[in-house]
C-alpha cells in the first residue's frame, strides 16, 4: 500500500470506459479547417480522437462504461444506491440520463441525477459520491462521465474542430477501510462564463428562424492563460487537504484539455520522475468529463500507474468550474481501453441523444 491519504473511508472500487468506433486522424480533418497534422499536434498534442457513430448514443456509451465499471468493482447493479451522470452533451432536457441509465442497467430504484460541471464533471461526481457514501446516504454510487461532443462541435471552426472526442468512463464509489478519496478542492468563477460556452441557448432555435444549431465556442488562449495561472494552486490545495506530498504520488491525471497545459503543470508542480503523467489526449482528444476516467484506464492498463497508488486528479471546464482531489487507484480493468470494433447495429432504444 502506498503512502497514507487523509480522506473519507471511501474508495474507487472499479473502473470502466467506452471508446467509440470511429477513429479520426488529424489528416481526416485538416482540409475542412485548412490546417495540418503538424499544427494540430504542436498546439494540442492530439494525433487522433474517436467519434461516436449514429447508434453510439450518449445513453449507449454511458451504459457500456457503467457495466464494465460494475463488473470490475464486483458490485451488482442492484446494490447501487445512487447513479450520477456527469455530462454536458445529453441533448434531452428531461428526464435525466441518470434515471434512464439506472433503469437500463437493471439497478433497483436508486437515486439518480445528472450534474453539469463540464470537463470537471467527473471530479465533481467522485466528490459527491464519496460524500454520499461517507454520510451513509448510499452504500455504492455509480459515477458515469459521458460526452458526445461531436453533436455540439463546430466542424468548421479551426480552433475547436480538431479538439473534441467522444467517449465514456465510469467508476463505482463505495466504502473502504483505508481512506481512498481525498477532500476535493473545487470552485467556480462565473465571471469567466464566456470563455467556454454554448453559442446560443436552445430557445433560440424556437424564437429565431435563422438560428444555427448551437455549438461549443471557446476562447482557447484565454482558457490557456486562466489554466496556467489558476490550476497549480488548486492542485496544491488538493494535495494539502489530503495530506499528500507530490513525492507520494504514483500518478498525475489531469483533464486532457491540451497537452501543453499538462506539461506546464507537471513542471510547475515539480513532479518527480516516478510520477506517471496522463497524456492520453494524443489518442482520444479532449473528451470533456470522460477524459479523466479514460486516462486513468489507459495509465492503469499500460502499467504506468499502479493499482493502490495515489493519483492526483485535476479538472476545469465551462463555468468556469474546477475540481481536484487525490484518490487511490482501483485495480486495473480486465481489458485496456479499446475502441469499439463496430457501433451497435440497431438505433439505440434511447434515441439519438
Amino acid at each position, binding site marked *: 500500500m502506498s503512502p497514507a491519504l487523509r480522506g473519507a473511508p471511501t474508495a474507487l472500487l472499479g473502473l470502466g470506459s467506452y471508446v467509440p468506433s470511429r477513429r479520426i486522424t488529424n489528416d481526416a480533418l485538416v482540409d475542412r479547417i485548412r490546417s495540418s497534422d503538424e499544427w494540430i499536434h504542436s*498546439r494540442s498534442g492530439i494525433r487522433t480522437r474517436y467519434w461516436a457513430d449514429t447508434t453510439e448514443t450518449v445513453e449507449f456509451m454511458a451504459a457500456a462504461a457503467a457495466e464494465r465499471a460494475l463488473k470490475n468493482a464486483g458490485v451488482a447493479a442492484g446494490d447501487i444506491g445512487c447513479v450520477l451522470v456527469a455530462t454536458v452533451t445529453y441533448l434531452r432536457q428531461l428526464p435525466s440520463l441518470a434515471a434512464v441509465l439506472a433503469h437500463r442497467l437493471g439497478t433497483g430504484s436508486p437515486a439518480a441525477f445528472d450534474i453539469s460541471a463540464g470537463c470537471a464533471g467527473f471530479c465533481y461526481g467522485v466528490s459527491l459520491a464519496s460524500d454520499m457514501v461517507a454520510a451513509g446516504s448510499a452504500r455504492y454510487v455509480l459515477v458515469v462521465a459521458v460526452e458526445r461532443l461531436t453533436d455540439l462541435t463546430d466542424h468548421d471552426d479551426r480552433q475547436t474542430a480538431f479538439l473534441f472526442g467522444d467517449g465514456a468512463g465510469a467508476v463505482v464509489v463505495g466504502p473502504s477501510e483505508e481512506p481512498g478519496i481525498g477532500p476535493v478542492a473545487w470552485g467556480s468563477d462565473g465571471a469567466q462564463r464566456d470563455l467556454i460556452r454554448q453559442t446560443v441557448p436552445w430557445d433560440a432555435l424556437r424564437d429565431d428562424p435563422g438560428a444555427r444549431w448551437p455549438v461549443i465556442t471557446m476562447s482557447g488562449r484565454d482558457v490557456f492563460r486562466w489554466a496556467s495561472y489558476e490550476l497549480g494552486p488548486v492542485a496544491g490545495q488538493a494535495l494539502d487537504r489530503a495530506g499528500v506530498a507530490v513525492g507520494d504520488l504514483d500518478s498525475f491525471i489531469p483533464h486532457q484539455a491540451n497537452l501543453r497545459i499538462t506539461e506546464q503543470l507537471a513542471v510547475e508542480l515539480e513532479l518527480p520522475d516516478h510520477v506517471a503523467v496522463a497524456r492520453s489526449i494524443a489518442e482520444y482528444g479532449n473528451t470533456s468529463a470522460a477524459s479523466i476516467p479514460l486516462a486513468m484506464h489507459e495509465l492503469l492498463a499500460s502499467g504506468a500507474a499502479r493499482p493502490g497508488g495515489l493519483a492526483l486528479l485535476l479538472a476545469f471546464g465551462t463555468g468556469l468550474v474546477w475540481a481536484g482531489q487525490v484518490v487511490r487507484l482501483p485495480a486495473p480493468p480486465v481489458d485496456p481501453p479499446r475502441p469499439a470494433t463496430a457501433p451497435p447495429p440497431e438505433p439505440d432504444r434511447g434515441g439519438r441523444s
Partner: protein
Amino acid sequence: MSTTGQDVLQVLREIIDEVAEIPAGRIGLDSAFVSDLELDSLAMVSVFVLVQRRLGVEVPNSVVEKLTSVGEAVAYLEHGKAPV
C-alpha cells in the same frame, strides 16, 4: 522597477529557452517572437505567465498581442511602455 534591461533580457532568455527550447545565445533584443523565434500564441501566453511569476509583472493578453519582439517586451517590462 529595480531590474535593469540586462536583467530583464536575461530572465526573458531563460523563460523562452524553457518554453520553446531556444538557446539563450540565439535570443537578442531584435529577435521577433513569431518570425525569428517561431513562438505561437499559446507559447506567448506561457512566456508571460512565467514572466509574471519571476518578475511579478502581469502582462494582459491585450498587451501580449502587441509585443512583436524581445526588445519591445523588455521595454514594456522596464517602463510599462506598450507599442501602439
